């Protein structure tokens, strides 16, 4: 009996102080959780560095020999070896490597004879553009379809969505790309072919963001916009299809969890419309989890873009990596791997942070 009395007394006495303490407590928890996340990001990034370093050293080819050629004298060989830092102890080499990577120095690409970082900055917008269009398709279609599949469980729509999901998990994306090009480009002529633009429009609009769709809008050149759209729509739809399959499946199972809860019965008893019950109450509660799902879907799109870009001759980071691979340009491969890996890890972190901010229970 006495406890509530004390509590209410103190609340009356110093309401603002308690609220302040509560707020500080919340901030501290948030910072602690954020610190944990930061630590995990740092650890993961360190792991990425170690793995790429090891991969770079696994190469059966002697990097010094391939740089100087087999006619070089022993003195030249030693000199180059020293210049490349390969005479240093292995941990020293790693420290050097990590230092360089952290400063954005991935070395020179043997294929393009330019710094890898420069190349990556040049090709990244193409990937970002395709991935963004793809995730928009995935989210805009995937979430409503997932919600409906859960609401109308075991209906025709639910079964269709299950098949859509199964196909998405089973079909090779590069094959779908090849077949899509055959049907929609070569046979029907509905979409633009490989590449980001038709050749005659190349360089028509000035590069501002590197995203051709955005640059075309800035320049007000609607012909370029339409052409770029016709090129991006097929690969982005294919990539978007995979995230649609994933997002709708996750949305469905998250919604099913909510739809069985008793608070929805209360909401219905109160006389709320079914639409409000589903979209406001049930869907409102899964939004936080959906953020994570969408971030993961976006990360998967980045990975899927490696093969898609190869099929569609899309000059993005995926194609850059595969082209470099085929000519054994290790600096370029590792640089690309680190960038994709970092974005991937970063997206995971971002989803965790958003989760922390939106959902107080996670603190």
């Amino acid at each position: 009996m006495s406890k509530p009395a004390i509590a209410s007394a103190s609340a009356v006495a110093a309401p603002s102080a308690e609220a302040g303490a509560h707020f500080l407590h919340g901030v501290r928890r948030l910072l602690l959780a954020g610190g944990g996340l930061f630590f995990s990001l740092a650890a993961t990034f360190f792991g990425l560095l170690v793995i790429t370093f090891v991969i770079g050293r696994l190469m059966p080819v002697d990097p010094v020999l391939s740089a100087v050629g087999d006619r070089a004298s022993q003195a030249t060989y030693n000199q180059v070896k020293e210049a490349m830092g390969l005479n240093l102890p292995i941990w020293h080499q790693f420290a050097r490597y990590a230092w360089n990577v952290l400063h954005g120095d991935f070395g020179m690409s043997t294929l393009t004879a330019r710094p890898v970082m420069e190349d990556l900055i040049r090709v990244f917008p193409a990937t970002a553009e395709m991935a963004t269009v793809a995730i928009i398709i995935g989210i805009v279609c995937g979430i409503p379809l997932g919600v409906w599949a859960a609401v109308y469980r075991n209906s025709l729509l639910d079964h269709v969505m299950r098949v859509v999901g199964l196909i998405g998990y089973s079909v090779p994306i590069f094959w779908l790309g090849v077949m899509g090009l055959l049907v929609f480009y070569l046979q029907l002529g509905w979409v633009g072919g490989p590449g980001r633009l038709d050749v005659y429009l190349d360089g028509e609009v000035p590069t501002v963001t590197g995203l051709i769709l955005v640059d075309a809008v800035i320049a007000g050149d609607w012909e370029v916009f339409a052409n770029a759209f016709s090129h991006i729509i097929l690969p982005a739809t294919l990539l978007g299809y995979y995230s649609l399959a994933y997002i709708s499946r996750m949305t469905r199972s998250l919604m099913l969890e909510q739809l069985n809860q008793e608070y929805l019965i209360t909401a219905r008893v109160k006389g709320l419309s079914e639409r409000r019950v589903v979209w406001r109450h049930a869907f409102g509660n899964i939004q936080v989890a959906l953020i994570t799902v969408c971030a993961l879907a976006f990360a998967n799109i980045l990975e899927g873009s490696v093969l898609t870009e190869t099929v569609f001759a899309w000059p993005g980071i995926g194609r850059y990596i595969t082209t470099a691979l085929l000519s054994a340009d290790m600096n370029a491969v590792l640089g690309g791997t680190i960038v994709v890996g970092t974005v991937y890890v970063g997206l995971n972190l971002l989803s965790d942070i958003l989760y922390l901010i939106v959902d107080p229970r996670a603190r």
Partner: protein
Amino acid sequence: MSGNETVLAAPAGLRAWLKADAPGSGWQATCGRAYRGWRAFARNPMGLVGLSIVLLLLFCAAFAPWIATADPTVQDLSLRLQSTSAEHWLGTDRMGRDTFSALIYGSRVTLYIVVLVLVISAPIGLLVGSTAGFLGGWTDKVLMRITDIFFSFPRLVLALAFVASLGPGLNNAIIAIALTAWPAYARVARAETLAVRKSDFIAAVRTQGAGHWRIILRHVMPLSLPSVIVRATLDMAGIILTAAGLGFLGLGAQPPTPEWGAMISVGRENILDQWWVAAVPGMAIFIVSLGFNLLGDGLRDVLDPKMT
């Protein structure tokens, strides 16, 4: 459901022995459990479809020389890019190789990849996960942190980097995929281990004098196995797709080995007029991945009903 079973039930004999409430031996109990598991699995038609597809793959791989109509590596440029015919059921590619035979032999390559990836990654995952879960403390923290690091990497890109360094080839592709596949099993095994580590039977084994490793290897790991198998079956499709992707990029199996992903890459060059050269191996990859997905879903429903 029960009415159905009484109609189907044989009067006595094997079925009664299998369904006995009080099995007389460990062997009988094992058989009975397997039988009940099978009955539960068989109620799921999609699971059965998946099983049939996987069995078909096994059949094709085992009897490839008898099923194939020609040697898939023999090139005959006079027969290049033929359409379907009685002699070449699915036509020929631009080297005049028989597509149907390449498809059949390709099932061996696919199976080889899947089995080897599993043989490499499942034990690593089981060992890491069981050890982390059983020992707990710092061992757990360190091992699971490493697992998380591997888990948060994009699988295909990492596999690409590995293959780039080790050189293209089927075995290097398998190693690369296996290195990215084990973390999932480690997580599953750890979760299972946490559930049993405080059990009485573990305490009993310990009082008998068994050491950590004996308990982990003989008593904890076997219990994690079913969950890991389910997870692995669901992973198979992903492994097949990654391997096919590497093959498509020319980094997996090297010619003349008939690999489905590489076959698509070859067929792509004549896609306009001879679309089937690329279409057929893609269908094969799709069907086999679908089979593993359906089988995995079915197995999960039987072994882990709470996940549906």
